[in-house]
C-alpha cells in the first residue's frame, strides 16, 4: 500500500447520455484523511461522478486511481471490498429485513465463509452492535429497516457502509430530508470516524453543513471542476457565485 | 422473533390438523362390493375440462346411454348399474387421484376407462395394482398396449395403427397401373395419428410406392402453409395425412389455397366427422377425401340402428352428430353385459379372464383382443362422395365403390 499521494484521483472523466454531456472531463483528487466536499448547482454532474466512482456507471473515458492504483473497470462489489463505499441520495436500505441484518450483510465475507451455518461470527455481530449503538439504533436492531423513519434510514445506511472498514466513504447528500437532530448526530459521527483516520467525499447541498465540515471543497459546474479550495475561498470566489446565481 | 416462531408453528399445526380432519371427516362411503344384489357401481373419470374435454364429454354420453338402457332391462345380473363420473381436467395427476378414490375410497365394483391414451395408461396402472379390470373405449394408441398390462381391454375393433391399414389394403388391391407412384406423409406428433401414418408408409414403401416427403409437425402448429408448400413442391400422387381434427382442416385449407391437387388424399382423422369437417373446409371441397373409421351412424353393424335410435331418443340431435367415441364407450358396457351373460358372474377377475378370449359383437363391430388388450380387427374405409361420408371398403360392407382420382378443388 502506497502512503504517498492522494487517496483518490480522477482524471478527465467523461460521460454522455445520448446528446447530453453529463460529465465533461472532470478531474480532482481526494487527499488522505480529508473530508472533501463536492458541490455544484443542480445538473452539474455530482451524482454521475459518484456513480462512476462507485462502479454503478461505466465512464466513457478518463481514469480513476484509488490508493495509487488505477481502477480499470470499477464495479460496486470490488470497490467496496477495496475500501471505498458509498451511500445514496435517497437512503437505500434493505427494507424487509432487520436493522441488524442490514449491517451483517455488509460485513466482508468471501469464499467458503459464505456457506457457514450462521449469518456472521461473534466479532462481526459485536462490531455491528457497536455501530448501532453509536448511531442510536440499538433499540431498533430487530425492527425491519423499512419501518424506520427516513432520517433513521439515512443513519442506518451510513452505519452499514462502515461495516466493511472502508478507507474512503462517499456520502451522497447525507442531510437531505433529515431533521436537525439527526444532522447533528451525522456530523458528530463523521468527525469521529474522521478522527480515526477515515477519509470522506461528501456531495451536499446544505451549505452550512459543507462549510462547517469539509475542507477542501471541490465545485463542479457543467460536468467539470470549476474551483477547488478551502471553504472561505470557495465562498468568495466569483466564478462559483456566478455558477450558482447564473443558473 | 423466537416467540413468534413458536406461535407460528402452533398455528400451522392447527391448520394442518383442521385440513386433516376435514379430509378424514368426509362421510365414509357405503361399501357395496360385498353386496351381490345391491347396485353395480362403476367409477369413470372423464376429461370435462382441459385438453381432452371435447371427446371426454362424448365418452360420458356413451356410458350414460348404456347404463340407462341396461337398467331399463333390469340391470346386469339383476343389479342396477350406477355410474359415478369424476372430472380429471385432462391431468394424469388428477386421473390417478380419481381412480384411487373410486377403488379405495368408494369401493366401486368396476372402473371404466377415461378418454385419451395418455390418461388411460396412468389410470390403468392404478386399476392394475388393485386387480381391477380396465375396459376402455378411448385409448388405442400403441403406447397403451406396449405397457403390457394384464388387466386392460380395449373395446374397439382395431388399434390406431391397424385401423388405418384399411387404406393400405385398398390401395394395394388396385391394379399396378392405377396405384400412386409417389406419396407424401405429413403427420401430427401425437400418439395415434403419427404411428398410423408411419405404419402405412412402411407398407407402401415395401410395395414400391416412393416416399417423397415424410415429416412430423408439432401439435402447436397453427399454420400448415409451409408444410403443404413443401409437400406441393414434391408433387406426390398420394398424400397420407396423419392428422387429428383441426390440423387436418388446416391441411386441406392450405392445399386449396395453394391449388395443390393430389390424386389420392387419405387422412387418418378429421374427415370422419360428418359435421365439423364440411363446416371447416367447405362442403364443396370434401369430394374424394378418404379416411378410416371404427364406426359411423350408418355402418351396417348389428345393433347399430338400435343404438343410434336410442341415442337420439335420449340426447336428441341428428344421427350424423354422434361422436364415434360415444359408440366406443357404449361398446365397453356391451362387453360387460356379454361377460355377465356368458359366465353369470361380474367380478373383475372374471371380466379379465373372459374378455381376453373369444370375440364379442358390439356396436363398433366384433371385438377380439390379444393378451395385452389390443384389438385384432381393422376399421373400414370411408370417402366423401357428393357431400356424404360413404363406406367404400372393404367391399362386403361398402355402400358405394371408391371414386378415384380425387377431382381438382372446385
Amino acid at each position, binding site marked *: 500500500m502506497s502512503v504517498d499521494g492522494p487517496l483518490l484521483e480522477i482524471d478527465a472523466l467523461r460521460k454522455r447520455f445520448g446528446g447530453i454531456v453529463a460529465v465533461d472531463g472532470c478531474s480532482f483528487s481526494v487527499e488522505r484523511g480529508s473530508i472533501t466536499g463536492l458541490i455544484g448547482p443542480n445538473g452539474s454532474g455530482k451524482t454521475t461522478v459518484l456513480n462512476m466512482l462507485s462502479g454503478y456507471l461505466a465512464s466513457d473515458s478518463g481514469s480513476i486511481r484509488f490508493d495509487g492504483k488505477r481502477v480499470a473497470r470499477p464495479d460496486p462489489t470490488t470497490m467496496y471490498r477495496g475500501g471505498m463505499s458509498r451511500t445514496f441520495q435517497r437512503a437505500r436500505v434493505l427494507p424487509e429485513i432487520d436493522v441488524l441484518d442490514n449491517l451483517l450483510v455488509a460485513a466482508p465475507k468471501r469464499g467458503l465463509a459464505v456457506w457457514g451455518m450462521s449469518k456472521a461470527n461473534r466479532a462481526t455481530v459485536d462490531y455491528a452492535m457497536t455501530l448501532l449503538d453509536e448511531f442510536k439504533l440499538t433499540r431498533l436492531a430487530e425492527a425491519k429497516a423499512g419501518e424506520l423513519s427516513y432520517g433513521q434510514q439515512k443513519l442506518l445506511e451510513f452505519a452499514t457502509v462502515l461495516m466493511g472498514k472502508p478507507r474512503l466513504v462517499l456520502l451522497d447528500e447525507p442531510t437531505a430530508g433529515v431533521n436537525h437532530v439527526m444532522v447533528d448526530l451525522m456530523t458528530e459521527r463523521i468527525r469521529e470516524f474522521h478522527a480515526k483516520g477515515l477519509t470522506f467525499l461528501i456531495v451536499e447541498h446544505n451549505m452550512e453543513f459543507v462549510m462547517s465540515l469539509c475542507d477542501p471543497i471541490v465545485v463542479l459546474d457543467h460536468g467539470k471542476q470549476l474551483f477547488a479550495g478551502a471553504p472561505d475561498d470557495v465562498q468568495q470566489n466569483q466564478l462559483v457565485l456566478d455558477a450558482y446565481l447564473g443558473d | 422473533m423466537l*416467540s413468534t416462531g413458536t406461535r407460528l408453528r402452533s398455528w400451522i399445526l392447527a391448520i394442518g390438523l383442521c385440513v386433516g380432519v376435514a379430509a378424514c371427516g368426509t362421510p365414509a362411503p357405503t361399501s357395496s362390493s360385498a353386496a351381490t344384489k345391491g347396485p353395480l357401481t362403476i367409477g369413470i373419470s372423464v376429461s370435462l375440462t382441459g385438453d381432452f374435454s371435447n371427446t371426454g364429454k362424448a365418452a360420458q354420453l356413451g356410458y350414460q346411454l348404456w347404463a340407462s338402457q341396461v337398467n331399463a332391462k333390469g340391470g346386469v345380473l339383476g343389479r342396477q348399474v350406477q355410474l359415478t363420473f369424476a372430472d380429471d381436467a385432462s391431468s394424469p395427476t388428477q386421473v390417478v387421484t380419481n381412480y384411487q378414490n373410486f377403488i379405495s375410497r368408494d369401493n366401486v365394483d368396476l372402473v371404466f376407462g377415461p378418454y385419451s391414451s395418455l390418461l388411460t395408461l396412468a389410470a390403468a*396402472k392404478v386399476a392394475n395394482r388393485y386387480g381391477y379390470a380396465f375396459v376402455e373405449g378411448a385409448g388405442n394408441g400403441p*403406447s397403451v398396449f406396449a405397457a403390457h398390462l394384464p388387466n386392460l381391454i380395449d373395446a374397439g375393433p382395431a388399434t390406431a395403427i391397424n385401423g388405418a391399414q384399411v387404406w393400405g389394403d385398398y390401395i394395394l388391391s388396385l391394379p399396378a397401373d392405377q396405384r400412386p407412384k409417389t406419396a407424401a406423409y405429413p403427420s401430427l406428433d401425437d400418439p395415434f395419428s403419427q404411428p398410423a401414418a408411419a405404419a402405412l408408409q412402411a407398407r407402401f414403401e415395401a410395395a414400391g410406392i416412393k416416399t417423397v416427403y415424410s415429416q412430423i409437425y408439432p401439435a402447436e402448429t397453427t399454420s400448415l402453409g409451409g408444410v403443404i408448400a413443401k409437400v406441393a413442391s414434391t408433387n406426390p400422387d398420394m398424400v397420407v395425412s396423419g392428422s387429428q381434427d383441426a390440423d387436418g382442416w388446416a391441411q386441406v385449407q392450405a392445399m386449396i389455397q395453394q391449388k395443390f391437387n393430389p390424386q389420392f388424399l387419405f387422412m387418418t382423422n378429421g374427415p370422419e366427422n360428418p359435421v365439423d369437417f364440411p363446416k371447416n373446409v367447405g362442403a364443396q371441397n370434401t369430394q374424394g377425401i378418404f379416411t378410416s373409421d371404427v364406426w359411423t351412424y350408418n355402418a351396417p353393424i348389428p345393433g347399430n340402428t338400435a343404438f343410434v335410435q336410442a341415442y337420439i331418443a335420449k340426447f336428441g340431435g341428428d344421427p350424423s352428430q354422434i361422436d364415434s367415441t360415444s359408440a366406443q364407450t357404449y361398446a365397453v358396457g356391451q362387453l360387460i353385459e356379454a361377460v355377465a351373460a356368458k359366465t353369470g358372474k361380474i367380478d373383475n377377475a372374471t371380466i379379465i379372464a373372459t374378455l381376453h378370449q373369444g370375440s364379442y359383437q358390439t356396436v363398433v363391430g366384433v371385438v377380439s383382443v390379444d393378451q395385452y388388450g389390443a384389438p385384432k380387427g381393422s376399421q373400414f374405409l370411408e370417402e366423401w362422395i357428393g357431400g356424404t361420408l360413404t363406406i367404400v371398403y372393404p367391399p362386403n360392407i361398402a355402400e358405394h365403390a371408391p371414386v378415384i382420382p380425387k377431382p381438382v378443388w372446385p
Partner: protein
Amino acid sequence: MIAALALFPFSGAESWIVNIGIFTLMYAALGSAWNLIGGYTGYVSLGSVAFFGLGAYGLALTFQHIGIGNGFLPFALVPIIGIAVAIVSVPIGWIAFRTRGLPFIIVTISLVIILQYMALNLTDITGGAPGLQVPQAPFPPGAYEEYFYWAMLGVFAVTLLACAYVRRSRLGLMMFAVREDEDKARGLGVATSVPKYAAFAGCAAFSAMAGAVWAYYLSTVYPQFAFDGEFLAMGIILVAYLGGIGTLWGPFVGAAILTPAQQYFAYSLGGSQLYLIAYAAVFIVVMLFLPRGVVTTIADRALRRSRRRKQVVEELATAESEALRDAPAPAVAR
C-alpha cells in the same frame, strides 16, 4: 411437524387419503423449492416446472437405459437426479440471470416451452408425444401409496431443511439482500451471483427430486404434463402465495389448503363445467384479499400482539415525530 407427517399413514388413513397426501407434499416441496428463488431471492421463476419435468424424465430415462429394477432402488436414485439437474441448471441460470424482473419471468416461461418442445421432438430419446413408461413398483396395494408418501415426504423434508438453513445463514442473508435491492447489495460487497445461482440450482434440484418421485408413482411421463406451464407452474406459485412467500412453512400451508381442495372438488364435482372459473376465482380472491399469504398475515397479527413489538412501534412513533418537526418528509422513503 415432519415427524407428525411421517406418522400420518399409520393413523389408519386409507390409500386414497394417502394418495392426496402425496400430491399435497409434492406441491409443498415444489412450493418450498420455488420459495428459494422466488421468495427469498426475489426472482419470480416459472422454471421450477422445467426442472420438475427434467427430474421426471431423468428417472424414466434411467429405467430405459440402465436396468435399475423397480423396487426401492429408484428412490435411491432421486437425490442423484436432483444433483444432476442442479448441475444442468447452472448454464440455464447463466442465460436467465442476464435479465431480471419481468423479463426474467418471461425467460423462465420460455425455458418451459423449449423443454416441452424438446421432449416432444427428440423422439428417439424422450419417446415423443406418448412419452415414456416406467415399470410399476411391485409394492402390495395397501402399502403402495405409503412408500411413495414417505419418499415424497423425504423430498419435502430435505427442501424444508435447506430453506431453514438458508433462513439463518449468511447465504440466506445474501439472498434477502438480492431480493430487497440487488444493486445496493452489490455496493455492500455482496457477490450477488453466489446467492442467485445457489437459489436457482437449489430450486432445480428439489423440483427435480419431486418430479422423479412423481414419475415413479404415476409410472408414466409425457411432455404435456411433465412440462406443464399452465396449471403446474402457476399452481406452485399460487401455493406459495397462498401460504405466504418468503416464509418457511408458507408453501406447506398453501399446499395443505389448496391441493386437497382442488383434487377433491375435481373428483366430487365431476360434471361441473365451472372448474376453471372456480380455480380462477380462488386465485383472484387470494391476490386481492390475502396478497401476503396466510402465514405472513397470521405472523403479523401475532407480532403486533407481542410486547416487544409494542416498544418498537412506540420508539418508531417518537422518532418519527421528531423527524417531522422541522424537516419536510420525502414523498417516498424508498
